[in-house]
């Protein structure tokens, strides 16, 4: 049963809740690092390692970290893992390190990592969080690779840097440029949407008002976006009345 649950968690990150093409997170490295397949693979793998490690660490510390400082703590932990990956790449794979440039350090502020920490790791066990991190990371990698595949082959006429004889002469350089990246990204999202991956599972935002950046200007007591509720796994996410009750409870403290 637990195995099936973990398998579901893993597969969700891969396809159903693909962080790039379904949740539309981490678009900055997606567009910047998909000009070539080597770049995409490197970025995907680095992000996966950081995601797995940070999810596990945050899950292990979830009962210790108070709610009020959870974001700074998550960022410190994520930054630590990113720095470790940076140092290891610089020492053992300097060519990959040079190729990734500033985007390696930018993994710290990648929405996918902070988002999964907030949405999953802080509510689940270490192993489940690690599996979720792995699924999301590989989903990120797959999406990046799919984009890089199209952009490099049709935009640059090369495959992993090797010229493809016919395509190289008729390449479309526009696809390698930023506007072309946006276009490929949009088309891929449209394709995933058309395949029905995103349909029917409107998710509710699962963080409290305390963590919401719009709290100061929003006068509501619960977040009523995406109000179609689903039961996921054995979790019962907050419904409207639960949200109201939790607000009342916090108000009473």
């Amino acid at each position, binding site marked *: 049963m637990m195995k099936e649950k973990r398998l579901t968690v893993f597969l969700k990150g891969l396809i159903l809740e693909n962080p790039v093409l379904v949740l539309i997170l981490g678009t900055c490295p997606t567009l910047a690092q998909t000009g070539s397949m080597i770049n995409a693979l490197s970025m995907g793998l680095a992000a996966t390692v950081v995601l797995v490690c940070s999810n596990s660490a945050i899950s292990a510390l979830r009962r210790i970290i*108070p709610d009020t400082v959870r974001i700074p703590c998550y960022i410190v932990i994520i930054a630590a893992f990113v720095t470790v990956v940076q*140092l290891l790449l610089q*020492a053992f794979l*300097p060519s990959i390190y040079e190729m990734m440039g500033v985007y390696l350090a930018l993994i710290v502020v990648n929405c996918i990592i902070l988002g999964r920490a907030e949405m999953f790791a802080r509510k689940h066990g270490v192993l489940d969080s690690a599996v979720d991190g792995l699924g999301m990371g590989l989903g990120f990698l797959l999406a990046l690779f799919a984009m890089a595949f199209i952009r490099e082959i049709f935009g640059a006429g090369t495959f992993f840097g090797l010229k493809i004889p016919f395509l190289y002469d008729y390449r479309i350089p526009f696809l390698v440029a930023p506007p072309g990246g946006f276009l490929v990204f949009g088309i891929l999202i449209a394709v995933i949407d058309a395949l029905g991956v995103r349909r029917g599972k409107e998710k509710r935002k699962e963080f409290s008002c305390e963590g919401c950046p719009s709290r100061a200007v929003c006068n509501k007591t619960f977040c009523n976006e995406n109000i179609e509720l689903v039961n996921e796994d054995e979790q019962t996410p907050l419904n409207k009345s639960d949200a109201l009750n939790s607000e009342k409870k916090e108000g009473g403290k």
Partner: protein
Amino acid sequence: MTKKNVMPVVVLSSIALVVAAVLAVVNMICAPIIEKAENEAVAKSLREVLPWIELSEDPTVPDGAPETVNAVYKDANNKGYVVTLTTKGYAGDIDITVGIDENGKVVKALVTKESESHGKPGMDSYTDNFAGLDSDGVLNCELFSGATVTSTAIRGAIYDALVAVGAADKVEEGEGETLPRTDEELLNLAGELVSENSGFTSVSVEGADPSLKRVFKEKSGLGAAIYIVTYTQYNPKESEILLHIAPDGKIVSAKLLSASVGGGLIAPDQSFIDKFVGKDYESIDDVELISSVTYTSENIRKCIKSAVEFVVPPLPRTDGELLNLGSELVGGGTLTNITPETTEDFVKRIYSVDKGGYVVYIVTKTEYNPLESEIMLYLSGSLKIEKAKLLSASVGGGLAAPDQSFIDKFVGKDKNSASAVELVSSVTYTSANMKLGIVNAISDVEKVMVLPDTARIVGISVLAVCLVAAVIGRAVYVRRRRV
């Protein structure tokens, strides 16, 4: 202070401390490996000029080293040095790396960065001349005809590298030639002569005609102000002239600062100098001399011609001749000169043809300077070589120059396939320069033609892609609404 307020601070601080400790440990493990890899990367780049160099310490700049020296890397086994320098060329800075062995001889010199204008030498092949030379050999190494400023700068920089490692004596600046005017006065006069200038940079005149005393290059591309001091009918009487020469080699304005002849003769005046305005290298000789002071006026004319030659070295053929030859090559048609201000090595003129395509005129240096070879190409709109004609070829030294059959190998080729054409084994330097000139010609035409054609193609592609994306988006939206 309640537990509720203290706990977050304690937890965050503890996490930060643990993270710092972990990072310190990882850094301790990785730092030596990173340092070794970085040193190895630097050493790899330095090995291009000194193949056996091993680095064990940071680069230094010795006390008293010439200003051009950026860094001196010492070999860990004391078997030489690599010196990096930056010197001023004709059009900007030139970065050079020089490898020197333990005996104070140059192993190899490489130009790593430069932005010199057309007419410059093939940099790599010029610096090859310094391999194996000691300080005397470097000082006596010949300059490159047609690019004296650039080659003087390179030669000076290589000598500075030898000075920096103690393999040569610093050349003390002598008292210098005493000119009738100071540099400050000359710059002010240049400022008055070249209207709307953006300031000047001084250019070395080493190797130029002795009458050229100062050359001030205008910073925004208006040309150069040249100060000439000529000897007059009776030495040591002098005449001083200041010229403004445009980048295309035409004299924009000229001012006679002073003239004297002696012997009771009347010196040439401003009206004589004004006759040179609007002239270029070919038409300067049309200016009539003053019959009463032919020596002085002829000297002035000769010096002005040298000044123009210094700023813009002349081509072997006139523009009129080139237009006719180009029209003949394409089988009739009107050519329009579209040569940009700066071109790649050996590319001298680019013409667009009214019926489509481009004609390019190339002049390359041959095995023995200053002999030259001339090639004319006809490129199609897709940048393939339709026709190629060898106008002239000479090598010297008793060697047989490449002939039309070598040039014919380039017909039908584009830039990539032209680069793969085999050289003529007996005259590799000349044939390599010809190949480089042809490849550079295609590159230059690509730059000149890029905007109109590429913009059209990109524009149409973007439109088509947007249309397709809009249709798909609309279909998806409609389908979702139905669901």
